């Protein structure tokens, strides 16, 4: 098919992120395997990319809720007697409670200071603070979701080295610093997230145990 339009067969053009794809043109693709394909050691995908793999959020929520249900089953033991049935009922209730509180299973709203638009993130897609923070970094702090990031040991949102910190509003309406409580406890209490400028987050909420003892004035003071 003749075409007067001619393109250079060169690499990704303007996008710096895709410059390395020049290697692909050899058709060998050998050098790609070590960089992009190797799964990381902890079994997770080598990077968490928004919207990939393309599974509908409805389906993900449903699966995750069931995973929690069956995990509860394993922890509490399944049996034929009334006692275990009651426990099953409770765990169902907890899942439903989670549905009600977060609005739709694992998805919570995330807002970032200075950005007018919020996003939603699926908490159930993560099993620790690290991956959640990294996903949020991709979502909010980079212009495009690129699969190739530098291998980061630690999210800067969590270790205090960024100009932003990650905070959340809990069931009681208080704003707390993300990362202080065990992950599971966090899941049960988080209502929404906020990426806040470090300079605005004054008197960050102390640890969970201390929170119960200290008066309300010690919680996160927000500059609105």
């Amino acid at each position, binding site marked *: 098919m003749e075409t007067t339009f001619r393109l250079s067969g060169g690499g990704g053009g303007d996008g710096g992120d895709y410059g390395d794809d020049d290697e692909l043109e050899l058709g060998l693709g050998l050098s*790609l395997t070590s960089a992009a394909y190797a799964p990381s050691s902890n079994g997770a*995908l080598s990077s968490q990319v928004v919207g990939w793999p393309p599974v509908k959020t409805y389906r993900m929520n449903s699966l995750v809720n069931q995973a929690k249900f069956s995990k509860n089953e394993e922890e509490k033991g399944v049996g034929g007697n009334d006692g275990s049935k009651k426990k099953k009922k409770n765990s169902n209730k907890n899942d439903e409670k989670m549905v009600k509180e977060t609005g739709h299973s694992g998805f919570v709203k995330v807002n970032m200071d200075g950005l007018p638009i919020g996003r939603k993130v699926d908490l159930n897609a993560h099993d620790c603070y690290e991956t959640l923070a990294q996903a949020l970094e991709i979502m909010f702090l980079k212009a495009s979701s690129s699969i190739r990031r530098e291998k980061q040991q630690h999210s800067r949102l969590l270790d205090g080295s960024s100009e932003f910190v990650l905070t959340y509003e809990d069931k009681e309406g208080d704003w707390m610093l993300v990362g202080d409580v065990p992950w599971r406890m966090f899941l049960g209490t988080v209502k929404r997230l906020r990426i806040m400028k470090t300079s605005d987050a004054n008197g960050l909420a102390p640890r969970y145990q201390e929170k119960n003892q200290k008066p309300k004035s010690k919680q996160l003071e927000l500059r609105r």
Partner: protein
Amino acid sequence: MVYSLPEEVLEHVFSFITLDKDRNAVSLVCKSWYEIERWCRRRIFVGNCYAVSPSIMTRRFPEVRSVELKGKPHFADFNLVPEGWGGFACPWISEMSRAYPWLEEIRLKRMVVTDESLELISTSFKNFKVLVLSSCEGFSTDGLAAIAANCRNLRKLDLRESEVMDLSGHWLSHFPNTCTSLESLNIACLGSEVSFSALERLVGRSPNLKILRLNRAVPLEKLSTLLCRAPQLVELGTGAYSSGIRSDVYSSLSKAFLGCKELKGLSGFWDVDPSYLLAFYSVCSRLTSLNLSYATIRSPDITKVISQCPNLQRLWVLDHVEDSGLNAVALSCKDLRELRVFPSDPYIADANVTLTEQGLVSVSEGCPKLQSVLYFCRQMSNSALITIARNRPNLICFRLCVIEPRAPDYLTLEPLDVGFGAIVEHCKELRRLSLSGLLTDRVFEYIGRHAKRLEMLSIAFAGNSDLGLHHVLSGCDGLRKLEIRDCPFGDKALLANVAKLETMRSLWMSSCAVSYGACKFLSQKMPMLNVEVIDENGSLDSRFDSCPVEKLYIYRTVAGPRSDMPGYIRTIDRDRVNTIS
């Protein structure tokens, strides 16, 4: 010689013409045919709610009984479209309530619907029969209560995968005792319990109920009660499918299933307990549709069920089915038309399931009628794809997702270009294709050359240069929807194929390399396109022409730029150099 048939005769003839394509052709023959046709068109389908305005629709077609609208781009399903993007049903419903008092059916997909709109629907259309809300959001059970209470002749209420604010289960009780017309009810997406007694009574007084999809909160112990009330069901979606080990529940359940002589389709199966699986043994031989994609059961149990279903035409399942289960499908289900295999653990690189490309190859060999495939797996090879293509040239829809982006052929470490090339070369009727794995511009060359019937193409993490996109835009004659993410496609291909964009419904590009300047040029050149740029960092004002846009959505329209966009979206205004909101 001039002659014409009387209007009534023409109208009667036209009533046999149902396809939109044909209706549109009829209306182009001459002025009088256009007039007659527009008065007797009863169904409207609007694939992009922003391609036309509600008033344009009502002005041209005054006697419509059924409207179907789609809103957000497909990638909204995967969280790529930010909140507040649009797709608001309200202006459509307001206009229809004014213009179509005899409207009977409304079907909405990926739209934002409010309780007010639902209430308006329930009070505006005296003969309202069908409401389908597919992947919609923005409404609560209060809106559903209004529909239940006011739609006297409601036949179908289908909430397919919508996000509903679940305020209470009591909305179901709003169906009056006089309502006996229900034929189809799908509440599977609702989170909380509905009032079971209200549900039971509703089912009991609906003799025409054929489709019933329950939500997870309906416990298994209660399922047999419902089945006994509705033995005429053709499709059933169960609620939670476990109940501890209770033989009385099992026996009443299997007895109830025995009574359902018309049952052809099953779905639901949340929290499955394998010991209850064969309670529906008696219906297996009749089943044409089985959706086990929420059932987290392992391979031997799935295989046992599948081998009992020789008449299966549609099978949706998790990757727990494994290659062994798919071998059983290939042996037992010779009538299979559609297979979907979903990932049970999408975020783990090495899941604990033996599902490989072999499963799909087996099914392609054993199931001669297979035409639609959605397959998530962790490894693929060119040889497997070539085999599949040769086995099944009758494929119409092929969506493959190799979970790790840019994964090469695991045997040769080469790109999967040749494999997908074989698919488009052999499957000449292919209408829908989703690519994955390591792909170069080569694969797009094959697609442009062979995929002449292709209507929808989804591309992610693929290609090397603009040449790839150019092959697609210049070669795929039938292309209607193109969605691209994370590919190194820039300005050149778009600008060389501007005319093509008007022949398509829409183009979505995110995380590519298209520049702001190219968008402006495109918009100036093509007045019938809306070129919408999405920038969540909120800095659209300070864009230089050379800046790459984050997300781009281009669609043809006769309604001009839309006015309901949030601040982070701009339609590039072709009359000005600088854009304003």
